[in-house]
C-alpha cells in the first residue's frame, strides 16, 4: 500500500506504524530527536488524516493515509484540530466500581483482582485505543477512544497502571535524527526499519546491528542525522562513528494521571507507574524540553533569576507544559535542580489533559444553551414573526411591519404574547410576613383583588427584578417577575424563606401559565364585544372567562394604553390567541413584538430591569423611590443598604432626554464640555412624538445634574418623564 507524506506517496506495509513507514522511506516526522515508540515523546508527531499532533508511533498505516510532518524549525506546528468529518464527538458516561488504566502486566493483574472482588470494572488500554487523558474530582476519569469520549465515574477505585517511560538523552545534538531508546530500537527493528550500525549505550536491543559503548554522552554529531557520538569516561572523550545511537538511560514512571488525582484516596498507582524514577546525571548542555525548546542554558538562566522550585521553573520556562507534558524533561529538571539545590524535588503537579485532544474531543458533550418556546411559538411563526432570543426565550421581535404594529397599539388594538413573564403562586402561614421582608412596598395594604408594581432589591439595595404582587385573598398571592428573572427570583425567594425560617408554599408557574396582553384604545370595546363584561379596573385583577377560556385578568399597562394581561393555562393559549385575533379583526387588531414594545414603554418612561438599571441601580438612582416604603416596620431586603447609601450624595440618575432629529444608539456616551456625563440605556424614535426619546444614566457634575448633553455630536435635552401621556389618562381609561 501507499501512504502520502507531505504530498509524496511512500510504500507502507499493513500492520506497521506510520512512523516505521516514514523511517523506511528515510523521512523523520519532525526531523529529529530521540524516538521512544512509547507515546511518551513529541519527536514523531505529525498531522495524520487531518488530525494534528498524532503520535505516528501509535498509529497504524492504511491505504491512502495522508500525513503532514511537523518538522522542527521548518514549519510552525499547527493548532490542534480534528477531522472535519468528526465534528460531533459524543460523550458516554459510564458508572462502575473501578477503572483500571493500563493494559500491561500490572493492569491485567489489577483487573483480575478487581473482578475477583466482584467489582464492576472499566478497563482502559491505550494499545486498544482507549486513552485516559485526565482524572477529575469525583473521581471521574476522562478517556478518548476512536469514536467517542468516555466519562467514567468510579465509585471505589481508580488504578493507574500506565508503566514507565524511558529517559531521553540530553546533550548537544540530541535533536538530530537517528537517536532511539532501547525499546524504540527493538520495535522499529521488528517492523523492518534498517537502523544501520548503531552505538548502544546501556541495555542491548534485540535484532539490531550494533556495537556497545560506555561512559557519559558528551554530544551527538552529524548534519541532520547522527554520524557519531562522543562519550566521556574517566576524563577521556571518545568519538564513535555510527549510523545511529541507542540509549538506555533508565526509566521514570508514567504517573501524570496519578499526579492529577494525588489528593483523591481512590486513586492508586501499581506496577512500574508506582516505582521511583531513575535520575539521570545532571545535564550539562542540550535541549531538555523538546516541546518548548528549553535548553540547559535556559534552566541555568531561570535558576540564576531566583527560581528554585520545580513548579516555578516549569512556569518560568514553560518546560513541561508542551505536548509530552513533562515526560521528556521531568527527570532532567529534577536532576538539574538537585545538583544546584542539593535536594531532589518531587515531580511537578499534573493537570488534565495528558494527551492531545482535538477541539471536537474537548467540546464533546457540550451543549448550546437551550432556548424556550412559548405555547404560541407556532402561531408567531405562522404570522411571519421574526423571532429573537430574549433571555432564555424565543420571542417575536416583529411581525414584519413595526410601524403598523406600533400604531395598532396607539390607535386601535393589539395583542402581545407575554407568556415569558415569571409567574408564581405563594401561600402559607407566613406568606404576608415573608412578602413584607422581601419587597420594599407595604404588602399589607394590597387588598384582595388589587395588585401593585414592585421592585425586587438585593442586599446592596440594587434593583435586580421587578413585577407585580396580586392579592388573591385567603393569604394567597400571585407574583409576577421579568421574563428573564423567574428562575433567579425563585431561587432568591426560596433561599430567603429558609434564611428567615418562614413557612411558605411556593409554585413557579411560568412554564404552565401563558399570558397575552390585550392593549390599545379599542381593546376594551373588543373584549366587551366578545362578551367580557366584568373586566377589572386599574390595578385590579379578576378571574374571568374570555372566549370560554379561564383567565386571570390583570389591569395594568406597560404600553401606555388601556391594557389587560390575560394569564391562562398554556394548553388554552392557541385558542385564546386565535379568538382574540378573530374578534379584533373589525377593530384593526395586529399583534406586536418586542421591537414595538420597547418603544411603547420607553415613551412612557418605563424601565427594563437590566439595561436601564445596570448592576448598581438603586431605587434612588432610577427614580423609583416611590416604590420603596421606608416607613413600613420591616427590615426588608436592601433596606439597610438604602439607609446607608441615602446618606451619600446622589452621583447619577436615570433621566429622560430628547433629541429632535437624531436617535442615538443604546450605549452611546453622553458628554458635557468634553467630560463624560453618562450613558444612554434605552433609545428609540417616537413615532407619536416625532422625536428621539431616551433614558440616560446621567452623572451629576459638580453637584448639578446637566440639562443638556452631547450625544454623537447632537444636543440632547433633559425632560420630565414620561414622554407620552403624562397624566396616564390613556392607560387608566
Amino acid at each position: 500500500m501507499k501512504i502520502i507524506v507531505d504530498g509524496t506517496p511512500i510504500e507502507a506495509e499493513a500492520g506497521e506504524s506510520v512512523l516505521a513507514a516514514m523511517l523506511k522511506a528515510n523521512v523523520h516526522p519532525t526531523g529529529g530527536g530521540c524516538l521512544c515508540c512509547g507515546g511518551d515523546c513529541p519527536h514523531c508527531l505529525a498531522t495524520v488524516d487531518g488530525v494534528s499532533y498524532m503520535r505516528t508511533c501509535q498509529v497504524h498505516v492504511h491505504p491512502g493515509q495522508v500525513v503532514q510532518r511537523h518538522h522542527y524549525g521548518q514549519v510552525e506546528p499547527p493548532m490542534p484540530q480534528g477531522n472535519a468529518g468528526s465534528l460531533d464527538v459524543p460523550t458516554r458516561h459510564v458508572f462502575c466500581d473501578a477503572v483500571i488504566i493500563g493494559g500491561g502486566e500490572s493492569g491485567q493483574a489489577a483487573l483480575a483482582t478487581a473482578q475477583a472482588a466482584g467489582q464492576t470494572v472499566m478497563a482502559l488500554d491505550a494499545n486498544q485505543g482507549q486513552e485516559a487523558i485526565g482524572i477529575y474530582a469525583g473521581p471521574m476519569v476522562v478517556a478518548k477512544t476512536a469514536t467517542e469520549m468516555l466519562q467514567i465515574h468510579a465509585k471505589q477505585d481508580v488504578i493507574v497502571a500506565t508503566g514507565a517511560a524511558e529517559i531521553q538523552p540530553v546533550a548537544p545534538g540530541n535533536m538530530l535524527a537517528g537517536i532511539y531508546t532501547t525499546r524504540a530500537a527493538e520495535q522499529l527493528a521488528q517492523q523492518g526499519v534498517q537502523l544501520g550500525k548503531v552505538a548502544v549505550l546501556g541495555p542491548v536491543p534485540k535484532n539490531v546491528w550494533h556495537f556497545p559503548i560506555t561512559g557519559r554522552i558528551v554530544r551527538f554529531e552529524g548534519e541532520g542525522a547522527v554520524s557519531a557520538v562522543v562519550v566521556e569516561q574517566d576524563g577521556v572523550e571518545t568519538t564513535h562513528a555510527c549510523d545511529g545511537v541507542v540509549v538506555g538511560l533508565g526509566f521514570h514512571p508514567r504517573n501524570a494521571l496519578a499526579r492529577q488525582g494525588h489528593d483523591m484516596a481512590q486513586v492508586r498507582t501499581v506496577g512500574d507507574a508506582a516505582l521511583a524514577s531513575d535520575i539521570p546525571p545532571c545535564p550539562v548542555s542540550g535541549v531538555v524540553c523538546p516541546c518548548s525548546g528549553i535548553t540547559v542554558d535556559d534552566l541555568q538562566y531561570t535558576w540564576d533569576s531566583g527560581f528554585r522550585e520545580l513548579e516555578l521553573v516549569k512556569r518560568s520556562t514553560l518546560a513541561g507544559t508542551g505536548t509530552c507534558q513533562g515526560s521528556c524533561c521531568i527527570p532532567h529538571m529534577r536532576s538539574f535542580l538537585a545538583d544546584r539545590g542539593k535536594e531532589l524535588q518531587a515531580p511537578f503537579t499534573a493537570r488534565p489533559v495528558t494527551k492531545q485532544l482535538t477541539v471536537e474531543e474537548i467540546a464533546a458533550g457540550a451543549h448550546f444553551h437551550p432556548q424556550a418556546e412559548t405555547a404560541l411559538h407556532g402561531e408567531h411563526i405562522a404570522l411571519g414573526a421574526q423571532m429573537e432570543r430574549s433571555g432564555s426565550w424565543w420571542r417575536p421581535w416583529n411581525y414584519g411591519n413595526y410601524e403598523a404594529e406600533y400604531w395598532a397599539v396607539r390607535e386601535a388594538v393589539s395583542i402581545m404574547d407575554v407568556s415569558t413573564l415569571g409567574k408564581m403562586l405563594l401561600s402559607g402561614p407566613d406568606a404576608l410576613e415573608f412578602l413584607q421582608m422581601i419587597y420594599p412596598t407595604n404588602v399589607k395594604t394590597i387588598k384582595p383583588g388589587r395588585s401593585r408594581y414592585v421592585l425586587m432589591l438585593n442586599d446592596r439595595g440594587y434593583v435586580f427584578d421587578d413585577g407585580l404582587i396580586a392579592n388573591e385573598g385567603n393569604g394567597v398571592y400571585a407574583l409576577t417577575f421579568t421574563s428573564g428573572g423567574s428562575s433567579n427570583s425563585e431561587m432568591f425567594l426560596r433561599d430567603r424563606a429558609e434564611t428567615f425560617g418562614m413557612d411558605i408554599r411556593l409554585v413557579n408557574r411560568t412554564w404552565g401559565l401563558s399570558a397575552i396582553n390585550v392593549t390599545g384604545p379599542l381593546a376594551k370595546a373588543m373584549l366587551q364585544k366578545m362578551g367580557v363584561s366584568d373586566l377589572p379596573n386599574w390595578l385590579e385583577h379578576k378571574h374571568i372567562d374570555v372566549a370560554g377560556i379561564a383567565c386571570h385578568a390583570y389591569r395594568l399597562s406597560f404600553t401606555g394604553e388601556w391594557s389587560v394581561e390575560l394569564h391562562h393555562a398554556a394548553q388554552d393559549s392557541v385558542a385564546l390567541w386565535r379568538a382574540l385575533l378573530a374578534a379584533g379583526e373589525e377593530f384593526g387588531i395586529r399583534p406586536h413584538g418586542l421591537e414595538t414594545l420597547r418603544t411603547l414603554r420607553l415613551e412612557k418612561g418605563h424601565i427594563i430591569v437590566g439595561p436601564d438599571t445596570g448592576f448598581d441601580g438603586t431605587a434612588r438612582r432610577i427614580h423609583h423611590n416611590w416604590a420603596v416604603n421606608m416607613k413600613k416596620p420591616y427590615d426588608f431586603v436592601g433596606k439597610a443598604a438604602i439607609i446607608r447609601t441615602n446618606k451619600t450624595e446622589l452621583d447619577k440618575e436615570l433621566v429622560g432626554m430628547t433629541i429632535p432629529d437624531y436617535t442615538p444608539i443604546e450605549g452611546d456616551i453622553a458628554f458635557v464640555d468634553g467630560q463624560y456625563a453618562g450613558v444612554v440605556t434605552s433609545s428609540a424614535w417616537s413615532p407619536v412624538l416625532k422625536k428621539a426619546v431616551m433614558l440616560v444614566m446621567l452623572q451629576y457634575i459638580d453637584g448639578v445634574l446637566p440639562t443638556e448633553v452631547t450625544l454623537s455630536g447632537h444636543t440632547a435635552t433633559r425632560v420630565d418623564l414620561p414622554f407620552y401621556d403624562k397624566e396616564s389618562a390613556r392607560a387608566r381609561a
Partner: protein
Amino acid sequence: MPAHNHIEFTRLIATRIATTAAAADKLHAPAGSVMIRTAIDETLIFPPVPDISVDDDYAIIIEDGSYASAWLDIDFALRWLPYNCAWEMPTVRPAFAQGMIADIATKLYFEQERVLMIVPAPYAAEMAAHLAHGGHA
C-alpha cells in the same frame, strides 16, 4: 449513536401540589395514576386528581401544564441516556430520577418496558431535536 426522529412531546396535564414535606409524605395517588415527588415540597400526579386530599391548609393544589412528556422505549432509552446523563440511572422499576440533560431540567419515570421523559414544556422542542440528533451536540 442512538437517535430517534419520532419522539413527540405532548403537554402533561397534572395535579401539582406544593405543600410541607410531612404532608407530601402522606400523599396517596389513586390507582392508575403516577405520583412523582419532584422536590421536597412539590409533587406531581397525573392524570390530574383535582379532589385529592392534602393534610395542609396552605397547600397549593393546581391543575398544571408546565411540563411536556414523551414515552421512550426502554431499549432506546438505556442506549441513549448514557450519552446524555452525567448521573446514574436507577436499576429498580418503577423508579423516578431527575437531572440535567442537554442543559434542560429533565425528569425520568422508569417502568419495566418504557421510560417517561418529562421536560419543561417550553423546552420540549429543544429536547425533541436533541433526541433526533443523537443527543450529543
